[in-house]
């Protein structure tokens, strides 16, 4: 965590820590961060911050970063392939991904493939556990993952270049430029990742991960202008283009490939007028995939969705203790493709958010949201939370919310099979958390209960036998999350330790059995030791057994993966760091998804230059 980046001080720790800096930090964050609501209205839930130094230590994909640093479970179809999250035992469509305050989950299938997000493009990635639909809309049921860029208005000109090269001809290049002064701020990020990805399947007589090669390129450019002390114009844009060959299973080769092209654009005008903060935002998002059943041919299936969002957010700081926000937004999505025809969906919504730091030891927040659309009836969404700072070092957080996930274009419009009468999935959630924070040590424990109804499932229809979606399943998910951290500095030695553990029961109420691909146990540990310019780090991941839909194999067994890295910085003023990473150095033979092995021991050389 570097002091240079105010966003990274965020909520990780405890409320009073932030409250103490309330006056000075808020305006600064309002200026530098697009997703200001995240900090303002998440004081009664747990939010973990992964700053750029954590991002740099992990592999380039969002899957790898969160798998080793958050309690979220990932189901990954082999390294680099389609990767979907399960947050607090919920489905892949029940985790929202928020880019600079804008929900970017696919309109076509409802989820974000975490292997199509390159982490190097972001200044901070935050993981907000628990319901967030009242602020972020659809999919924020299990939790949300926030990708943020920061635009600062100070004199700065800096370059950062990271190059990784390793086993399976895996190359990652990440370049970042920042240039700013009092009036103008600009940031440019370029990333390129590619891999032959032809790793050996352990214990299979030399089978390899055939047809698993991939590449992706992403460009991120942000630009801000300070018109005067109270008016700012900012523009964020991002492009991700990638091609993955989809690898097969142990017994079945694959010849398919998949191309993604996603663009995200956000223009905003922020005005700070006394106690009022006014934000006008216009966003344009596009997503397009092409699926080639045979990578060698030019024949493909494609679908595209284009979304325009208009948003007005007016915040009023009644006094230093009370903030109220009124937000109205309008979203129009056009989806088209061979299988879904051409359809347009428009959603209008109004939200009201209220935060009151009533007492030094007590504060509460309320979020309300209602959407309207022609397709279905939207539930009234809310979140109510309170914090109790019982002791200086100990606090209790309570939060209750109602959240939802809207049907996707595939669910609604798939040719001949989609169900235009689907309702959104909706959930009630209750959580209680405790935090302990001392100088070098912190710990948190959260208990949660989620009740989800009207879950959309594709299954054969009772009458026609056709495979079609309907609102059938009722699921309850409950569990506990524990997190502990400890930092110690003795002379030039620093030790940093962090462990997460999640216990998750997620069961279909009718079947009374754990959902597939939801482990009961997941744990991660990161330990780093630094002496002067030398750093050694150790990562550990434990994922418990998961059930699979296969009646023959039933489960994927639990696995433990350990990574070991060493780095040395040769720089005096600038950073010239070189390092070596041994991933899965105990050579664990494991699968995330049935019959799709993950790589054994492999190596990466990494180089970081900052100048």
């Amino acid at each position, binding site marked *: 965590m570097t002091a240079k980046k105010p966003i990274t001080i965020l909520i990780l720790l405890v409320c009073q820590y932030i409250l103490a800096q309330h006056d000075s930090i808020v305006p600064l964050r309002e200026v530098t961060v697009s997703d200001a609501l995240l900090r303002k209205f998440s004081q009664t839930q747990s939010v973990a911050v992964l700053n750029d130094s954590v991002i740099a230590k992990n592999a380039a994909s969002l899957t790898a970063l969160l798998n080793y640093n958050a309690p979220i479970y990932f189901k990954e179809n082999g390294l680099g392939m389609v990767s979907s999250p399960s947050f607090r035992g919920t489905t892949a469509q029940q985790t929202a991904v928020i880019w600079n305050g804008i929900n970017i989950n696919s309109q076509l299938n409802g989820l974000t493939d975490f292997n199509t997000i390159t982490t190097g493009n972001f200044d901070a990635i935050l993981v907000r556990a628990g319901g967030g639909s009242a602020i972020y809309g659809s999919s924020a049921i299990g939790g949300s993952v926030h990708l943020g860029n920061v635009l600062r208005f100070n004199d700065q000109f800096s370059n950062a270049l990271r190059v990784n090269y390793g086993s399976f001809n895996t190359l990652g290049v990440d370049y970042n430029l920042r240039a700013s002064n009092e009036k103008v701020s600009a940031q440019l990020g370029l990333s390129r990742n590619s891999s032959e990805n032809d790793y050996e399947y352990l214990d299979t007589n030399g089978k390899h991960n055939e047809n698993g090669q991939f590449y992706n390129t992403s460009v991120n450019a942000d630009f801000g202008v300070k018109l005067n002390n109270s008016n700012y114009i900012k523009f964020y844009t991002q492009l991700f283009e990638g091609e993955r060959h989809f690898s097969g*299973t*142990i*017994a*079945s*080769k694959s010849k398919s490939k998949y191309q993604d092209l996603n663009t995200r654009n956000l223009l905003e005008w922020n005005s700070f007028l006394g106690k009022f903060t006014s934000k006008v935002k216009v966003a344009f998002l596009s997503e397009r995939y092409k699926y080639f*059943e*045979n990578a060698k*041919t030019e*024949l*493909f*299936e494609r679908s595209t969705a284009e979304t325009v969002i208009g948003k007005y957010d007016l915040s009023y700081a009644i006094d230093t203790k009370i903030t109220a926000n009124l937000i109205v937004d309008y979203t129009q999505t056009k989806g088209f493709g061979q299988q879904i025809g051409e359809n347009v969906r428009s959603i209008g919504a109004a939200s009201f958010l209220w935060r009151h730091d009533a007492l030094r030891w007590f504060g509460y927040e309320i979020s309300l949201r209602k959407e309207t659309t022609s397709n279905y009836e939207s539930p009234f969404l809310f979140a109510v939370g309170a914090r109790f700072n019982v002791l200086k070092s100990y606090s209790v957080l309570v939060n209750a919310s109602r959240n939802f996930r809207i049907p996707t274009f595939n669910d609604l419009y798939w*040719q*001949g*099979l989609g169900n235009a009468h689907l309702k959104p999935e909706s959930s009630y959630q209750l959580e209680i958390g405790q935090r302990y924070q001392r100088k070098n040590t912190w710990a948190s424990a959260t208990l949660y209960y989620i009740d989800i109804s009207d879950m959309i499932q594709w*299954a*054969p229809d*009772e*009458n*026609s*036998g*056709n*495979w079609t979606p309907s609102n059938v399943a009722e699921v309850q998910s409950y569990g506990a999350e524990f997190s502990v951290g400890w930092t110690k500095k003795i002379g030039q030695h620093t030790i940093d330790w962090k462990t997460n553990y999640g216990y998750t029961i997620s069961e279909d109420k009718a079947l009374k059995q754990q959902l597939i691909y939801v482990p009961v146990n997941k744990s991660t540990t990161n330990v780093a030791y630094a002496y002067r310019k030398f750093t050694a780090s150790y990562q550990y991941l434990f994922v418990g057994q998961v059930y*699979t*839909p*296969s*009646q*023959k*194999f039933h489960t994927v067994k639990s696995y433990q993966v350990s990574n070991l890295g060493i780095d040395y910085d040769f720089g005096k003023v600038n950073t010239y760091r070189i390092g070596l990473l041994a991933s899965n150095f105990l050579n664990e033979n494991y699968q995330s998804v*049935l*019959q799709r092995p993950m790589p054994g021991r492999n190596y990466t050389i990494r180089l970081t230059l900052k100048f």
Partner: protein
Amino acid sequence: MKIKFAFAAIAGAVLFAACSDDDAVQPNKYVPLGKYDSGVLVLNQGGFGHDDASMSYISFDFSKLENDIFSLANPEVVLGDTAQDICFYGPYAYVVLNGSNKIEIVNRYTLKTVGTIDTGLSNPRYMAVYNGKGYVTNWGDGVDTTDDYVAVINLATRSITANIPVIEGPERILEYNGKLYVAQTGGYGYGNKISVIKTSDNSVTTITVGDVPNAMQIKDGYLWVSYGGKPSFATSETSGGLVQINTNTNAVNHTYPYSGTTTHPSNLVIDGEFAYYTIDSGVYKFALGAASLPTTPAFSTTDQGVYGVYSFAVKQGHIYVGDAVDYVNNGKVHVYSLGTGLGQAPLGTLENSYTVGVIPAGFYFNF
């Protein structure tokens, strides 16, 4: 030839028991050729992408069910993904695995694997054998409507020697008199033809039948085809029916259509002088030569919870119904009386039920 031997054994059991008590010869005692002789092999498709295709065995006397028999015989080998068809030839069973693009060759009585054909197949579906050659229908890439073919396999060398191009979506294949009849269901679209391939020169002609021909049978020199019509999720739904084709002239001799647009017969089997087929959960019986198809089923399988018969067979006085249930959990096989045997229970009487693997896709009678 083995069928003849089995018959001889049964006949012998009667004859020899009657006129001879010579224990030394015992030609009446049939020695099984392996654990899985004298029973039906059930091919379970498995879940798409799960690599969990499997096979089950039900003995002809219905006393024995054994699941996952391929894995029992070959613990180190994964059979593959999305099993589609089995073809017997000599001592071998050729298991066509659609998702794995391969054919696993096993000893049909022991299930021990003896080889694999895994090059040259693209979305393989069904297989027939004639004159030492295997003929396998292939969709090619699903989205490509012009790359469909029938692969010709030299069964001695287990290699593909030729590809015969056919129109889109070749599905079931049947050999009669040196000619191959291929039901063109249409792949991702909807076909309405039967391709006829002369094995002498691999030339192809087509016969137009009804929409989505799904099963074929030969009876007294005629090819009978059940066609399902276009399903309810197609842009325009159509009803199916039966077609009778003269195999000498390739001309349609008679069509037996269902009226309306919502009746979708499939799974045609001819046994004796009757045709049996299914519509949804109903089993229909049609006397060959009757003027029109029955509009009510001979019996229904709904009491067993079947809402769409997935696979179907008629053999030795029994009707076998494969129920895919929800396509996710293990499927069921129900055995009903055909009602034709002496002293047998009436048609449609449930005799046995078994839980097999995921999506029981076909029955293969092993003797």
